[in-house]
């Protein structure tokens, strides 16, 4: 059986993916500490030598801001990617809905039924990633809302426009989560768990595809390409 190599992610997209992955691990590890400091600093050290909470917050904010910027890049790629413009797979037209259903059926029937072309990014994955990006956007908005309270005087190291803009862009999250700053915090914390659950499924699903589709899908995010069986590239088939 002949295999054909298909390029799926550019070098930049792969780097972006791993930057996001590292940021997420960092943001979760430090975020959990901020929500409940789960390890202690050495009591014998004088306070001037320790900066444990401050370092955790610094890493959390740094990870968040890198995360935010990379998300803006991903949002751009939704529309202008050289490979697969993700927005095209999100439009709920007949073709996409059918593909979404077919991929879901493939997953639920444990790969017994596979009626779609797995050479390109499919609608199911596009929707799945879109949910992730919505959650990220929510983390960005709620996180920046909590962050802006550190600027009561309306000044920041980069000027007064920054806190002013953050207030304009994120103050509505207070109202929508229940009216208090604590509600924003609860929502920020809760959404983290949804993101972890998302990541768990994401990793599992990519490994599952690699094992059962036999097309080297896991290489997409490492080497940038996968392989598709030549004979089934154009034709749909049904496994028994």
């Amino acid at each position, binding site marked *: 059986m002949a295999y054909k190599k298909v390029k799926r992610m550019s070098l930049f997209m792969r780097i972006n993916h791993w930057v996001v992955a590292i940021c997420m691990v960092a943001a979760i590890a430090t975020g*959990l500490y901020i*929500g*409940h*400091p789960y390890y*202690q*600093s050495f*009591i014998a050290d004088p*306070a*001037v030598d*320790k*900066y*444990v*909470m*401050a370092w*955790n917050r610094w890493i959390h904010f740094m990870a968040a801001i890198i995360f935010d910027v990379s998300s803006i890049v991903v949002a751009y790629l939704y529309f202008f990617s050289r490979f697969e413009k993700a927005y095209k797979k999100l439009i709920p037209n007949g073709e996409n809905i059918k593909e979404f259903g077919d991929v879901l059926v493939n*997953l639920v029937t*444990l*790969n*017994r039924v596979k009626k779609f072309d797995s050479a390109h990014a499919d609608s199911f994955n596009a929707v799945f990633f879109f949910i992730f990006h919505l959650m990220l956007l929510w983390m960005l908005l709620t996180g920046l809302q909590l962050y*802006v*309270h*550190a600027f*009561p*005087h*309306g000044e920041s190291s980069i000027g007064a426009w920054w*806190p*002013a*803009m953050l*207030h*304009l862009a994120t*103050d*509505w999250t*207070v*109202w929508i989560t*229940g*009216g*208090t*700053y*604590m*509600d924003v*915090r*609860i929502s920020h*914390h*809760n959404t*983290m*768990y*949804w993101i*972890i*659950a998302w990541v*768990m*499924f994401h990793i*599992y699903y990519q490994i*599952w595809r690699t*094992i*059962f589709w036999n097309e080297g899908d896991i290489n997409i995010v490492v080497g940038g390409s996968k392989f598709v069986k030549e004979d089934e590239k154009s034709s749909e088939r049904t*496994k*028994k």
Partner: protein
Amino acid sequence: MSDRRDALTKLFSAKGAKVDTNRGEAYYEALMKKMSARLQQLETSDLAMKSSIERALDAQGLTRRDFMKWASAACAMLMLPSQFTPLVAKAATLMNRVPVIWLELQDCAGNSEAILRSDAPTIDELILDVLSLEFNETIMAAAGHQAEEHLEEAMKTFKGKYLCVVEGAVPIGAGKEWCTIGAKGETFEEHLLRVAKDAVAVVAVGTCATFGGIPAASPNPTGAVGVQDVVRGKPIINIPACPANPANITGTILHFVLTGQIPELDHLNRPKFAFGYRIHDNCERRAHFDAGEFVEEWGDEGAKNNFCLYKMGCKGPMTFNNCSIVRYNEAVNWPIGAGHGCIGCSEPQFWDKYATERPLADSKIKAPTGGVEKSVDEFGLGLLTAAGIGIAIHAVASASAAKAESEEA
């Protein structure tokens, strides 16, 4: 719905959250002129009450110097430059010309208690004593029809001039008929609306009056709300906290005496001079927070060393108030100074969402669906477990399906 919309409009205005402590010389010069004119006008007006701050200070053995020290501190608290100190002092002596009607609704009278019961009254508290309290439901001698008559008279005499100070929440739900006042059995809501109608401004004192406070805590059997949810078309100033700091009450009234206007407010109608900063921003234990030095349990080594109380549930990082600067009882002490974390008493819904005495991640906060109390972490762990089990089942099933297939082939 319209109040929700108002709240939204306010939220979307970035300037609502900004505290401006230096507005430039021209601004302060204009303000000085305005305030002087206002005080002159007050000086020539009739005394609303016979007692004066001079007499009250004398009785407590406090000197003019003590009074001036207080005046400069109050001036700083109101975020005014030091040249305003004489004006602040003068305003304090003219406080007996501003008529006040003090209502007591659904609460524990803790704000009145905080002012009245201290054994060494501070100047803030003395000023509230000499304030022309035309009518005060908690401490007046009159009762029944006599009290009602007194209220009518005060409202008529000072129509459109008096400040209506409200302490306590307003029940408006199914249980509102449990709370009535006076010989005519007015509900609290009717009583408040009647008095607030002719007031120049309404000052809600304490968290119950501002956001409903403890009476509005879940399950809120009386449908309690704050004054701002009931009174419409009047300037409303909220001075939350449990109890409200007398310094902030005096500051707000001083501001009114000085300018005839209410102070600059944040999006929750709290004066910015008092509620513009978080407790955390000026906390004496802040360095321990940054260092990661926390009290792990009551009475441990960290507690003895005044470590940060964050892990004991301190909500200073998310509570806006000036406790960490002004403190209570003439700056003697305050909750965090005494070794207990902040419970966020000046924030809306504080009893349900802030006063959990644990960090957010461990707080048993009621789920939005109500009924079951689950901490965020328990919920998250449950979600992760469900996802893990789902993945495991799917993986095992896939593997066995593939195996069966290869055996077939």
